[in-house]
């Protein structure tokens, strides 16, 4: 009970000291800037973005075509009396004469021709949509129906292999029962007038702010009918923009948290805080509470605003926790403002990639489930997701946040907070507080287990990054990078021990330490595999990342060999041999993985 009261006291202090007081000084200008922001948004929505203006040059002898082309700001159009494509060759990116388009044979020429094709398409639409008989101008409509396949996951998990080979010219026969599907209604189901307004409103709308404003207000539903030119792959760009609205406040608020922690460390201002009788977990909970509550409140308000309901917040909560935990740690390790800026910038970029990139493929591929944002998109699209999918995309966030919070609590001490060591030393310091020289094996074991979620997260990020590369290249990249991440993580314990306690590293302790760490890794991997990676574990990518699905002794010996190699380098040559030793360990690791992969590739 007293802890609870203390937490609220700290939260109250924090709100007053770090949010209200500085807030007052910047408030007038901030409000002014927010008003200006609104005005600037309106202005840019009216005027459009002028980034690619005048990129291409076009020459023509037809005034009507010149007007059509000049409607797009990307083109600089020159009107000639008469233009001969052979004589003017190379003078323009594209030449249009006698209703024929000639493109210069350069990259820019090809790009200009492609851009012109889209401009022409828009022009045609603007002409056709004026027609009295609209269905003579648009005689073909396409209605898309999504069919849910029972084989969803078992098929998609084969990674890139998406097409079954054609066996014969005979029509395929379904193995299961055939349920009767009534033929769709042949009628348009849409009146000429609604259709016309849909056509006029559509071109290039995707780039305009107001389009999203409509979306947020919920007034824009999915069009059931499209013309063939409107048919596009199901990429959820709209939902992504919407999600960005949710993530952006989290970035912003976590900046305040980092700064507040950093401020405690300037000139040992936080000494008073540390001298209170409260335990460090109480202080940290109290300090982070206002920020967490703020993030949650803003997210709740946003979801209320778009009428999405509280279910939308469910996948967001682990993300909020992750932002809080990493903000805390970043505020604790940064030595100076510059470092804080760069670490936080770097952190937010990496997190953005991890969160956004997979969810672009939310309606396309199973890989998208790596990111919790995908679940938010599902919620917005009113699609259900299973508990195991929820666990798959959020458990890594939950586990890594808990580990980071634990590290923050353990290290919230005078000698850690007020030290100005380098980033690496500080990280080693943080790790070392998990190590007890009195129980070296037990601490190495726990450390091994604690770093595994981070390894998984890094490997997921790698998977996401290489996923779009062609298959052999992506596998090789993944193989090397994943091995590197794993070896760094595995050797971190022994490295820290050997630098902190110089006498520690004997041949005997190296062997024992390696055994313990390898075992911890194996155990933690198995545990995490249960909830998380089963979705992708059976694809060829899964084999590269988590080779431990096969026999137990193979992954165990790979782990062991890796640590032994880097540990031996440490023992023989000290700190300076660590990096070469690590490189060698990565090589060995890759070789072992390749040997396992043989079963998949050949």
């Amino acid at each position: 009970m007293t802890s609870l009261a203390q937490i609220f006291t700290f939260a109250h202090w924090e709100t007053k000291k770090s949010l209200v007081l500085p807030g007052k000084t910047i408030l007038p200008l901030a409000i002014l800037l927010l008003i200006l922001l609104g005005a600037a948004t309106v202005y840019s929505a009216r005027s459009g973005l002028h980034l690619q203006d005048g990129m291409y040059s076009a020459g023509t002898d037809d005034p009507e075509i010149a007007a059509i082309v000049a409607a797009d700001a990307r083109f600089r159009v020159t009107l000639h009396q008469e233009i001969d494509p052979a004589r003017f060759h190379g003078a323009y990116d594209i030449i249009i004469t006698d209703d024929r388009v000639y493109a210069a044979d350069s990259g820019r020429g090809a790009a200009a021709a492609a851009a012109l094709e889209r401009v022409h398409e828009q022009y045609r639409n603007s002409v056709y949509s004026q027609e009295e008989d609209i269905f003579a101008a648009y005689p073909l409509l396409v209605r898309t129906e999504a069919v849910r396949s029972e084989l969803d996951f078992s098929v998609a998990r084969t990674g890139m292999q998406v097409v079954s080979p054609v066996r014969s010219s005979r029509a395929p026969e379904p193995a299961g029962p055939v349920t009767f599907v009534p033929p769709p209604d042949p009628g348009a189901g849409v009146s000429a007038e609604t259709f016309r307004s849909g056509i006029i409103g559509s071109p290039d709308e995707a780039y305009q702010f107001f389009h999203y404003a409509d979306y947020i207000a919920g007034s824009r539903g999915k069009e059931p009918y499209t013309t063939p030119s409107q048919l596009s792959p199901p990429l959820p760009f709209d939902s992504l923009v919407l999600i960005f609205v949710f993530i952006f406040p989290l970035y912003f608020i976590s900046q305040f948290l980092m700064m507040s922690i950093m401020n405690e460390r300037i000139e040992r201002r936080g000494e008073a805080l540390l001298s209170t009788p409260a335990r460090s977990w109480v202080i940290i909970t109290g300090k982070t509470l206002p920020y967490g509550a703020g993030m949650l409140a803003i997210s709740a308000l946003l979801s209320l605003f778009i009428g999405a309901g509280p279910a939308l917040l469910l996948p967001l909560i682990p993300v909020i926790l992750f932002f809080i935990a990493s903000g805390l740690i970043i505020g604790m390790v940064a030595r100076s403002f510059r470092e804080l800026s760069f670490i936080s910038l770097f952190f937010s970029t990496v997190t953005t990639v991890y969160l956004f990139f997979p969810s672009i493929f939310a309606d396309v591929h199973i890989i998208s489930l790596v990111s919790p944002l995908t679940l938010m998109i599902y919620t917005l699209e009113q699609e259900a997701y299973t508990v195991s999918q929820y666990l798959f995309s959020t458990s890594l966030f939950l586990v890594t946040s808990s580990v980071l919070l634990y590290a923050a609590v353990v290290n919230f001490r005078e000698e850690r907070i007020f030290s100005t060591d380098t980033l690496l030393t500080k990280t080693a310091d943080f790790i070392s507080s998990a190590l007890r020289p009195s129980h070296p094996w037990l601490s190495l074991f726990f450390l091994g287990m604690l770093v595994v979620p981070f390894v998984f997260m890094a490997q997921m990020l790698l998977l996401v990054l290489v996923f779009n590369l062609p298959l052999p290249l992506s596998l090789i990249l993944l193989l090397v990078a994943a091995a590197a991440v794993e070896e760094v993580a595995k050797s971190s314990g022994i490295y820290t021990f050997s630098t902190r306690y110089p006498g520690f590293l004997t041949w005997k302790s190296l062997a024992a330490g390696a055994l313990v760490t390898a075992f911890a890794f194996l155990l933690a991997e198995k545990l995490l595999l249960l909830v998380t990676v089963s979705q992708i574990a059976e694809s060829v990518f899964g084999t590269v990342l988590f080779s431990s699905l096969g026999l137990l002794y193979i992954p165990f010996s790979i782990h062991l060999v890796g640590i032994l190699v880097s540990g031996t380098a440490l023992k023989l040559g000290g700190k300076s041999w660590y990096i070469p030793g690590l490189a060698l360990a990565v090589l060995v690791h890759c070789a072992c993985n390749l040997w396992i992969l043989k079963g998949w590739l050949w």
Partner: protein
Amino acid sequence: MALVKGRTLPVIARKDLSALSKEKTILLAILLQLFVAMFSSFLMVGLASLYDPSSISGYTGIKYQVGYSGEESPLKELLESRDDIRLYPMDLSTAIAALKERQLVAVVYVPDTSPDGKEPVTITLYTVQNDIQAAIINVKLKETLLLYEDYLRVIRAGRLVVLPVELEFPDPAGAPVFYEFVYGLLIPLLLFMPAIISAALIIDLITEEYEHHTLETLLSAPVSMGTIIWGKILACFVLVPLQAGAWILLLTLNRIPISSVPLVMIHVMLVSLFLILFGALIALYYRERTGAQVIFSLAVVVLMLVVLATPGNPFNQVAVLSTGGPGAGQVTVLALVTAGIMVLAALIQKFAKTTID
């Protein structure tokens, strides 16, 4: 006493630069830029491959199995003539069942609407939900459906009042999507990123001296406030051409040639100087990091929106210049940015003076 001393200026700049290199933070900044470049390129490659799957080698030569159901129509022949689609005339219910078992990638249903009827011909396209194959077959079917739309339009052409001018396009070559992305977005983004980084850096450098109370120590040496500020600005500014130059070099090595490099660099450096001075001014005003950074980032967002929405802006100039095009209205833009720099510089001088008194 002169406000800025020429000889002490580089000393201050060197002090801040050496602190920066000792911390190796600049490494993190460079890593960050690489990451952004990688991320945006991967995004682009991924999206392009989705729109044009044949750009990924593994997808060529594959025949997609499509079920055809409903009435006979010219669409059937159009689909059959494609060599990447194998069409099976089937009963609708059987076809859907096969689709659910993924023996087909799509099913097309064509109703018996007459080609010259009053109503549009509404075909139904069944695909599997949440599947990359659905995205690919969408792109392929779109090409054929556009042909069929043209066919139907010709039949109904008598009912149209105005016919648009038709153009005959050459066959597309290469991946033009990348060109516009690289020159129209990636290059301006990469070249101006150092500017943003340096501007954030100057805020940290200045507010740090205030908050750590190291400014008094510095001022007790024979340097003026102006010298300290301008030394810091110099330190941040020299980082810009180094990073932007590295990007230009890397892009060129990647066979993305950049034209008019000197002019591009002038634009980048002037805009960077403007942003750095702007950041310095805000830092001098607030003297503490949180407030300064919040106000600066809000102001930069506003500024960016306005600048990007204005035709002929520096970003546009850099995009056009790097493709080898003539930047129209160069002089005006350069003069405007320079004028902005002068105003900010004067304000900073004023601030530096008041701090001394």
